[in-house]
């Protein structure tokens, strides 16, 4: 199941969650006991007051994903988080473009902390986009760039 920009999804079965990230940040939440996982594809750190699009912003997307995953059977207390993305795609650039990735990472960490969800895996920063596949059954995440598999991580 592919999660597109500014969207989120939750799986409770054998499907994988997939997404592709540049300066965007992917937040994966998982309850390893219930095998319920969710992924939010976040574009920007802070919600604009005039924007209804909750999934776009770290500070609104994390609580929204938490609400969805718990309503799908996950227990808040068992949740673990993975944080992926936040690259600088145009690194030389003027500050606005170059710093979006970092700001997204900082905002996502903050939102997870406020929701009291521990981060068990991070693959962030750098200058390359990432293709992410998360397996709900095994809890394993695979992160690839154009050049190579960067890292894999798993938590039970």
């Amino acid at each position, binding site marked *: 199941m592919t999660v597109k920009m500014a969207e989120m999804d939750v799986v409770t079965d054998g499907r994988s969650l997939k997404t592709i990230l540049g300066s965007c940040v992917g937040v994966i939440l998982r309850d390893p006991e219930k095998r319920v996982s969710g992924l939010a594809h976040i574009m*920007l750190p802070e919600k604009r007051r005039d*924007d209804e*699009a909750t999934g776009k912003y770290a500070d609104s997307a994390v609580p929204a994903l938490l609400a969805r995953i718990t309503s799908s059977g996950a227990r808040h207390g068992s949740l673990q988080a993975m944080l992926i993305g936040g690259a600088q795609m145009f690194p030389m650039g003027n500050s606005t*473009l170059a710093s979006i990735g970092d700001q997204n990472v900082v905002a996502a960490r903050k939102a997870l902390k406020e929701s009291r969800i521990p981060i068990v895996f991070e693959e962030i920063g750098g200058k390359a986009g990432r293709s992410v596949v998360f397996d709900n059954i095994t809890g394993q995440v695979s992160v690839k760039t*154009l050049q190579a598999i960067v890292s894999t991580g798993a938590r039970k």
Partner: protein
Amino acid sequence: MVIKSLSRHYREVEGLIGASILGNGKIALIVDVETLISQNHHAADAVGVKSRASVVEAVRQVAGPKASPPQPAPAAKHEAAPVPAPVTQPPTLVTPVARVEAAPATPAPIARAVPAPAPAETPSTSQPIEELAKIVTGAKGRLLEDVNNQGAIQASMSLTQLTGQEIRVSFPESRLVAIKDVAEIMGGEESTVGGMYVGVQGDLAAGMLLVIPEPYLLLMDDVLHGRPSGTATRTAEVDLSAVSEMGNILASCFINAIADASRLNLSPEVPEISIDMCLPVIDSVLARFNQPGDNILLTQAVIYGGGLENAVCHQVLFLEPDSLRKLMDALVRAQTQADTSRVAG
């Protein structure tokens, strides 16, 4: 068929009064038959009334051969003029026009050393984004469209001259698109592309993003290094300065067109390049020009050519909402002034 006026460089060429783009993406120059006839009345007298085909032939000569290698400068056009041309109507202000397919192989005023390139224009997203979409697609939006089209014509000509391959830039189209679909529109979230971003400084907050699919990236690399097409096979080895060159020209054409028409002060920043999957290349730019809602106003031109079926690049212009309004106002003002002086002259 929408008829566009020519930029000032081409306006000086007698006999050409406009341009349009055909269904297949080719640019068609629109010829003022009366002018051609009056310029060449000697020849015309001698030959008498001819078929429309001869007009087409005349225009071919004026506009340059099809699928030709880079052509010389535009000035050359004046000489090349005219084979007679027909048409029996008396000269009137409202002239019949003949349309001719001309490869954009013509002259290009813009080339490597572009003096003061200017920015790209275009709208991106908005308040109630629908409101901006209305501005861009409404009556005032025609002005923006005209400017964009000037940019497209110049860009076609410049790239064709630079590369020696027929390259066409379509007239940009503005429409509302769901953010989640943008990467798919450009060929797929995971496809390898070269992305180039040129920010604009000056009176507008804007930026231009060029998304170049891998096959085109390789082709541009070959062409710009004078190698036969197909030589470059690995994206990792692509010379980024070559891509940069192409992007610079494109950005300059559009930015110049906007600055000319609006009389705003605009200048492009240094291009930045990233070769990566499509979605990562575009996401930070989408974030930079973010506006409320799930849609963005995408003003997009498509670049065809180089003999590759799949060589279609996407050029997207972003403009902050305030800048879009400012640009529209400036265009209206400049247009009014131009109309006034035209009447006076």
